[in-house]
């Protein structure tokens, strides 16, 4: 008995080696689902925080790539919007037939750009974007962002363009109030970068605070139904027949980065039409 104990003490490590090896092999080829499940759940509860920590650092490396993918996706969605086309699809015809018959005419096309210069607190604010004539940008194109309206392209150079921001004394955007569908004009009130005035709404029209204001689509620069903001102040003015309305702009102008440029494909046609009735 003593000999056995001595033998075991001397060769304990061989025994341990065999035991551990057996455990390892059991772990590898365990056909029982339950222990494996227990180990893997335990394993995940241990490894989870480690992977999270790794992700915390590595996620930053992919942001730029991710961003370009998202911008491309947004462009695709913008292009598919109903307001980008002249005729809505007919229920009697399929999509393919409509495009074949040229019934669904594309009016607006979109590209994206990054804002590289931007002011907010001046009397007349401009933006500069990093796309220009070589990217097909021309005078009078609309600039929007994911939150709403930004402005109109003013001047174009080879690789850059300047944009008249909505926060500019000359900017004037045709707007429509939902749900009353009244037309008005958005003009900036020159001191608050978060608010603008909505003009030309008659006093008798029922307008509530909180009503949404969209682009009307009549200006041919902006497509229909792009959010401008919500009504935040309403005042009945006894001197004029119009209401004094203030709109809280949905766009945060101090935080612009990626913007989308809207191109009207029939701009020259519409321009010539417009010039003809100016001559009248």
């Amino acid at each position, binding site marked *: 008995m003593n000999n056995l104990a001595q033998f075991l003490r001397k060769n304990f490590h061989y025994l341990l*080696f065999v035991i551990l090896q057996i455990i*390892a092999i059991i772990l590898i080829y365990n056909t029982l689902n339950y222990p494996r499940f227990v180990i*893997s759940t335990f394993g995940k509860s241990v*490894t989870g925080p480690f992977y999270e920590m790794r992700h915390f650092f590595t996620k930053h490396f992919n942001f730029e790539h991710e961003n370009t993918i998202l911008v491309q996706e947004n462009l695709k969605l913008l292009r598919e919007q109903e307001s980008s086309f002249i005729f809505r699809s007919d229920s009697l015809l399929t999509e393919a037939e409509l495009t074949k018959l040229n019934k669904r005419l594309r009016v607006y096309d979109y590209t994206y750009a990054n804002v590289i210069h931007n002011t907010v607190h001046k009397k007349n604010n401009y933006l500069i974007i990093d796309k220009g004539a070589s990217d097909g940008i021309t005078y009078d194109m609309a600039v929007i962002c994911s939150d709403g309206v930004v402005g109109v392209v003013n001047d174009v150079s080879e690789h850059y363009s300047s944009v008249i921001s909505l926060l500019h004394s000359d900017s004037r955007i045709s707007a429509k109030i939902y749900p009353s569908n009244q037309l008005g004009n958005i003009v900036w009130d020159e001191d608050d970068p978060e608010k603008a005035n909505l003009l030309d709404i008659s006093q008798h029209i029922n307008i509530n605070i909180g009503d949404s204001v969209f682009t009307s689509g009549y200006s041919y620069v902006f497509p229909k139904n792009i959010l401008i903001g919500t009504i935040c102040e309403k005042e009945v003015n006894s001197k004029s027949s119009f209401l004094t309305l203030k709109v809280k702009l949905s766009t945060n102008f101090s935080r612009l980065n990626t913007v989308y440029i809207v191109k009207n494909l029939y701009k020259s046609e519409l321009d010539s039409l417009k010039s003809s009735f100016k001559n009248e």
Partner: protein
Amino acid sequence: MNNIVLRNIFRFVILLLIQIYVCNYVHFLGFINPYIYILALLLLPLSIPKSFQYLIAFVTGLIVDIFAMTYGIHASASLTLIFLKPYVISWLTVGKNRDELTTIPIPGQKDFKWLLIYTFLMVFIHHFIVTMFELFTFRKFWLTLISVIGNSLFTTFIILCVQYIFTPTKKDYK
């Protein structure tokens, strides 16, 4: 003594973190995936009781397994590695005195050729076991063997680089 223990623990932690965060994501040329945590096992002093060495190797392998979701494979390979380690060392140092068995193979104590053969042999044993357990088939055996050798050479290269860069002074290992 305390210094050696701390040094070893520190080495294990650092190498395991590198293994988990970096090396598990390396897929060089499609099949090269270095397992550099072996270095910690190779540098484990032989003076530690054998059963304790086995436990350390098993737990180390199991930690790598949990992160690689290959339950048991690395544990088994590490255990075999630590089991064969004294035999490989004694086999490689024939005709020399037995005292060398208790020293640790680091640059400065052994020449480069010895270290290269020793490291490659140990790494090859480990990688071979890991790969065979993962595949669990003898189909395309020679192709597997070539990829194991390639992977072993890569790991050996990294381990030797690390060893020569971070060689501690001789007196730390007694």
